[in-house]
């Protein structure tokens, strides 16, 4: 009898320890995220098991796929959120409708808006999450990521001009106020778009684009045809200039989490 109870206790402890870095005595908060980005971030911080639901297309890491969903990024269902009775709803300020926060307040659900438009915001938001929600005593994971970023950026001393293409037609670029642009800037890059431009993904005229060739032209795509098409066009538009064309896989670079930080230096090493 005693042996059985002891085994149960061991199993329980292992579940709690394995589930998340939360203290065993601490109540596990129930979290809902409203975007795939936030889902990925929570898993990266080591608290994936606290998620009770998330938005559609939360496909990374694999465990996220099995979570129940509360609707799509732009149309989250308040009814579904309420049904899960979460302790916190993490709202992606970039994409989730602003009305959701008001609605959540009305139904007395705590929500936290997360901004992820720069590398700095990624770290500060992560720190907020770790300290305020998960009551983490140590921020080891963030310290490691900071060190990793610092050592990676040190290698790159060369300055270069770049543009990031989100879509070819209509020609839509990543503005300065995007996470990806900020990340590449940390490695010595300068986004050719005017830094006063507030739009995150501005549609720009092709004439301006042709007149301002970058050193590296990034294209967010998984499809080889898109890259080939841009390569063909680049040869026409800039026959006398060397424009390095680099594909960024959306699997690694579309979401402002720690994943792009892990892959960008390898890409830039090849490109430069």
């Amino acid at each position: 009898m005693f042996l059985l109870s002891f085994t149960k206790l061991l199993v329980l402890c292992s579940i709690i320890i394995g589930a998340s870095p939360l203290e065993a005595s601490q109540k596990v908060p129930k979290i809902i995220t409203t975007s795939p980005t936030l889902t990925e971030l929570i898993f990266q911080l080591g608290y994936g098991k606290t998620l009770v639901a998330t938005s559609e297309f939360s496909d990374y890491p694999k465990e996220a796929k099995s979570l129940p969903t509360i609707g799509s990024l732009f149309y989250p269902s308040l009814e579904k959120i309420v049904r899960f009775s979460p302790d916190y709803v993490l709202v992606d300020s970039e994409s989730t409708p602003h009305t959701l926060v008001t609605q959540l307040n009305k139904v007395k659900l705590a929500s936290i808006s997360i901004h992820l438009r720069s590398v700095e915001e990624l770290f500060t938001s992560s720190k907020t999450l770790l300290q305020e929600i998960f009551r983490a005593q140590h921020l080891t994971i963030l310290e490691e990521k900071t060190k990793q970023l610092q050592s990676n950026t040190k290698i790159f001393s060369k300055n270069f001009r770049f543009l990031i293409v989100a879509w070819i037609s209509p020609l839509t670029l990543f503005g300065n106020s995007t996470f990806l642009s900020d990340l590449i800037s940390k490695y010595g890059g300068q986004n050719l778009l005017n830094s006063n431009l507030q739009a995150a993904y501005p549609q720009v005229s092709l004439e301006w684009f042709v007149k301002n060739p970058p050193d590296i032209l990034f294209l967010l795509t998984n499809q080889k045809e898109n890259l080939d098409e841009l390569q063909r066009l680049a040869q026409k538009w800039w026959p006398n200039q060397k424009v390095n064309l680099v594909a960024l896989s959306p699997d690694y670079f579309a979401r402002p989490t720690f994943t792009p930080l892990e892959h960008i230096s390898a890409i830039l090493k090849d490109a430069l």
Partner: protein
Amino acid sequence: MKRLFGGGLLLTVLFICLGLLLFGGAQAISFDTFTAESMTNSADHRIFWLLKIPRLLLVLTVGGALAMVGGTYQILFNNSLADPYILGVSSSVTLGLVVAEIFLGWPSNSIKAMGIGLGFALIVILLLLFCFYFHKLQNMERVVLFGVGINFLFSSALFILISLQNHTLGSGSMRWLFGNIPWIELKESFALIAITAPIGIIIVIFGRYLDGLSLGDTVARTLGFNPNHVRGFYLVLTSLLLTSVTCLTGSIGFIGLVVPHCVRLVFAPRSSRVLLLISFVFGALFLAVSDTISRSILPPLEFPIGMVTTLLGGPLFLYLLWKR
């Protein structure tokens, strides 16, 4: 005389704007581009020949075609609110392109995707003709209502498809809803002209039948032609014309609705042929000017073309309406 002078003045202003389009826009280029030998390989030279000229040909063709189709529909349906998108042909093209992009992974500016768009449009055109001839849709009001129904159905399907996509970065498909002038090469511009010009010419040549229709079915019969055959003929022609331009640009609003009305108010043309011809010229120039403005307001930003056409055309139309 006064009307002629006004029209001439307006046309001159529009031609000046056209010059500004070629040499102004987001990146102004100088005349030296064509004189100095060293400039022949410059960025300005490439911008002019690779970007500005094909784009100008495209917007002139698309603007003209939309105004012409709008003018034709207004006569055909005897409805002053008829615009090129009233029959649902363009929303079917848009749906086809988005389906090709989402489910088949074909870029919407590829020939394959346009083939799917064309296929969707042909289904709607055939359905329209079938209903028109065999299912008592010969009342034009019913045809319009049928088109409105198709439009709602396809637009809803389009919105559902777009909202079901992975919105990690939003969706390029949204451009079809607001209209977009894509980059095309010179040979593609000529290919579009080669497709649309014969259709436009046929529409104008047979314009006298539209005059007959505008006087009513009884008069049309006494003039010696079957009004329903003429309607069917024009439905097919205009749908093909519309399909060929929508495949490239998506739905650009306002031009097809308002340009023919403005032409009526300014020139008061006496025949459908003249109306359609002048509508073509003004629709073409109006879209060209709107396109220049969309790229010049806040360079390097480019605003959705449909937004500019509405902002420009709305006050102009209201002014003309007020003056007359």
